[in-house]
């Protein structure tokens, strides 16, 4: 093993291979201190390649030695898989590959390396008068590679989809060092046909399908203004009604909204009092008299001052913190077309009748795989996301009344993945034939032992 480490050190250059004990311990954790800290598996070493040639050779070396691999950005993901699941794994960091190339203002795209932070992408886009809509809650810490790996849309920013929707093209590195370009609607490697853009299959795979390389991201025009509101309601009906009003076509808002039940209120807005339902809305180019036009005065509402607290930062912590306390029940809420709201509610009722609330919405880590399944079934992604959004609106009411049994995630996924499972298995065979990608999964939802 020493010889392998020496070879890696020569390949990567001084300071880019960390095998000291403190570094191995530091990179053995991700989010859940209470659980993972006790069950931490130390990596063999931590490698930080600084260009893709080094990365390819490193992966070839690991493949030849059958070393387990873990890919990691800045370790901000709540979904795990960036800490070792097996002893003697090599953690490969993307932070050494952090260039943001010039923005193409005409095409509204930017080419970025996976270790660039989302804040760096946003800054580069802003210089060209553009924005990257799918920013996460910790843009200064989360890398682009990490964002695409988890494909997690942040409800705090106006979004019209998930980060994967903004990927024009993507390179993925298989564990044997081969570069797999995935641009547009190119066919799958190995000749497999697919009816969906290939890049989106790799987004959301949480590092289980290869190392995300350079990506070309689509950008959007900068809004004139972004406003954030936090309203408090005494009952869920008013909160839901206000949410629906936000989506009225007459207002023409590009809006992301999220409803928090009283259990979250204390965590997010301590001054909101107990029993309060909070509606958080982030609007682009909202009219000045938005609150009046929403007719909020007729409801039991109150404006909660955000004050100096960085609310989006508080929300950044909400998901893993609440998941530890209450189990994996939370969803992202995504903007949807206003006219769909009645349909959404109907769909939600249907969904709820098929499986339990908690089980239904525990699908987040597999959302990308579910997307793939639906694509293969010929269904558009949009309606699913809209269904899930409306489901969240209903969840807040159901959670208070019922205590649904938790449906095991694997069973639910087996029921719904179908052909997607075969597709993912095929991709896995192409990208990780030796099964070297062995990050630890699920620890973020388990209470410490």
């Amino acid at each position, binding site marked *: 093993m020493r010889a392998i480490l020496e070879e890696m050190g020569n390949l990567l250059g*001084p*300071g880019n*291979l*960390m*095998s*000291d*004990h*403190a*570094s191995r*311990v*530091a*990179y053995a*954790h*991700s*989010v*859940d*201190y*209470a659980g993972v*800290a006790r069950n931490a598996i130390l990596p063999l070493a931590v490698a930080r390649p600084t260009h893709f040639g080094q990365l390819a050779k490193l992966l070839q070396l690991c493949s030849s030695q059958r070393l387990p691999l873990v890919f990691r950005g*800045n*370790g*901000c993901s*709540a979904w795990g898989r960036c800490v070792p699941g097996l002893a003697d794994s090599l953690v490969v960091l993307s*932070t*050494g590959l952090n260039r943001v190339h010039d923005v193409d203002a005409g095409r509204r795209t930017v080419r970025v390396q996976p270790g660039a932070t989302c*804040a760096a992408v946003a800054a580069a886009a802003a210089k060209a008068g553009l924005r990257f809509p799918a920013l996460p*809650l*910790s843009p*200064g*810490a*989360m890398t682009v590679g990490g964002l695409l790996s988890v494909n997690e849309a942040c409800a705090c920013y106006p979004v019209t989809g998930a980060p994967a929707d903004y990927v024009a093209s993507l390179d993925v590195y298989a564990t044997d060092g081969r570069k797999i370009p995935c641009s547009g609607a190119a066919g799958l490697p190995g000749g497999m046909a697919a009816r969906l853009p290939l890049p989106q299959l790799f987004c959301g795979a949480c590092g289980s399908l290869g190392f995300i390389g350079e990506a070309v991201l689509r950008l959007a025009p900068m809004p004139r203004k972004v406003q954030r509101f936090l309203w408090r309601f005494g009952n869920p009906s008013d909160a839901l009604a206000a949410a629906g009003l936000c989506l009225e076509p007459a207002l023409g808002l590009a809006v992301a909204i999220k409803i928090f039940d009283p259990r979250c209120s204390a965590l997010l807005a301590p001054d909101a009092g107990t029993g309060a339902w909070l509606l958080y809305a982030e609007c682009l180019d909202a009219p000045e008299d938005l609150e009046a036009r929403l007719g909020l005065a007729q409801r039991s509402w109150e404006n909660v001052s955000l004050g100096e*607290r*960085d609310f989006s*930062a*508080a929300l*950044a*912590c*909400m*998901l*893993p*913190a609440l998941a530890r306390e209450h189990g994996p029940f939370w969803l992202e809420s995504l903007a949807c077309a206003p006219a769909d709201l009645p349909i959404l509610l109907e769909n939600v009722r249907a969904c709820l009748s098929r499986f339990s609330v908690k089980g239904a919405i525990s699908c987040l880590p597999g959302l990308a795989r579910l997307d793939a399944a639906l694509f293969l079934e010929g269904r558009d992604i949009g309606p699913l996301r809209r269904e899930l959004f409306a489901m969240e609106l209903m969840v807040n009411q159901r959670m208070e009344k019922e205590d649904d049994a938790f449906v095991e995630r694997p069973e639910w996924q087996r029921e719904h993945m179908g052909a997607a499972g075969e597709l993912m298995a095929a991709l896995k065979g192409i990208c990780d034939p030796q099964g070297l990608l062995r990050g630890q999964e699920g620890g973020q939802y388990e209470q*410490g032992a």
Partner: protein
Amino acid sequence: MNRAREALARFPVLARCAGCGRCLEACPSYGISAMEADGPRGRLFLGLVLARGQIQPRDVCASFSTCLHCGKCVVACPMELPLDAFFFSVARTLRGYIATGRRIELLQRLLLLYPGVVNFLQPPLALAAGLWSRSANYQPFAGALPRLPFVQRGKSGGSAPGRKRVLLFMGCLTRNLWPALAEACVALVERAGFVALSPPALGCCGRPQLVRGADFRSGVIRNLAVLSSLDFQYLLAPCPACLATIRHIWPEGLSGEKRDQARKLADRAAGFMSFLREYKVDMGQPGDSTSVFWHPPCLMEATERDIAIGMLASAGFTVGTGEPADCCGAPFACVRTPRKARRTVGASEKELDRKLAGRIRSRAMANCAAQIVTACPGCLLALRREMAVANEDMPVRHIIELLAESLAGDRRN
């Protein structure tokens, strides 16, 4: 060691860390090295593992020696975790592993416990430093003659009955390295209509010892004995680190009657900028739209920073600023990892120190600033040294000096 570990284990609230990484964005040392062990989140984890006895101190001391104790992670943390208190607690645990060189440690102990000895030795030391620094191309006195330490003014309170009094806690660097800054502090306090007190017997605030995990309480108790015998309305300090230590660390580090004394003292400690605004001391003549680069000290409170920027802007300066995670690296003057415990990878404190200061220099040059303005004597030290080593002649000034000069210009006119 076990007691220290028990102290570490008393931070159960740290398990609330959500791993969001906001602290990484704010941490200056993580911004340079991008290594988990150099960021607050990684240090938090290492500290918790150390408390459980699952790692040896010698394995983690290098990570904690790169902690600047700048407090930016505390401000950034949305869960409001007491990271600073935890990291100081870890420093106590690692006492003996995080240390300075013997000469600096001796100097720090002298400053803490026997400030009079330092005052006596300072003139020949300054002369020797001036001779030494010329050969090393680093001239802390920038060509001026070495000055006597600031001990001449306001020893006992002045003879102005009826006038309110302000105690100026000058701190080690202002009194010994930047006496012109000390003179400027006195001038501004007098301009506000107060009498300035600056007892020569006051020693160091204790922060350098705290950072090293050493016991600072004996020096603080000596300072309290000096301060409790004086009558004053406000305590001001030209160094935000001294002010933060007096306000927050002194009361927490003591017990009993001493704690009460420290709390009463902390209540009278005020920010220098807030004091000047309260008593309507502002920049005199408008500036000539000179571009300045404002470097806010890490431990300067947000309201103080806002007032400082407002003063500069209203005086006609064009103010450029850097990034929130910028730090000059001055705290690295307090710590060095012993050779036996140094990491083989990652930057040393010295390298990080240079890179941090160099980053600010680069930003200031990119801003085409005529000078760098800061509000901390430690930042003055780090940035002036950086300019000297880089052979740049951009001045680095303390905002109090600028204020005093502008008011002096007003009086002359």
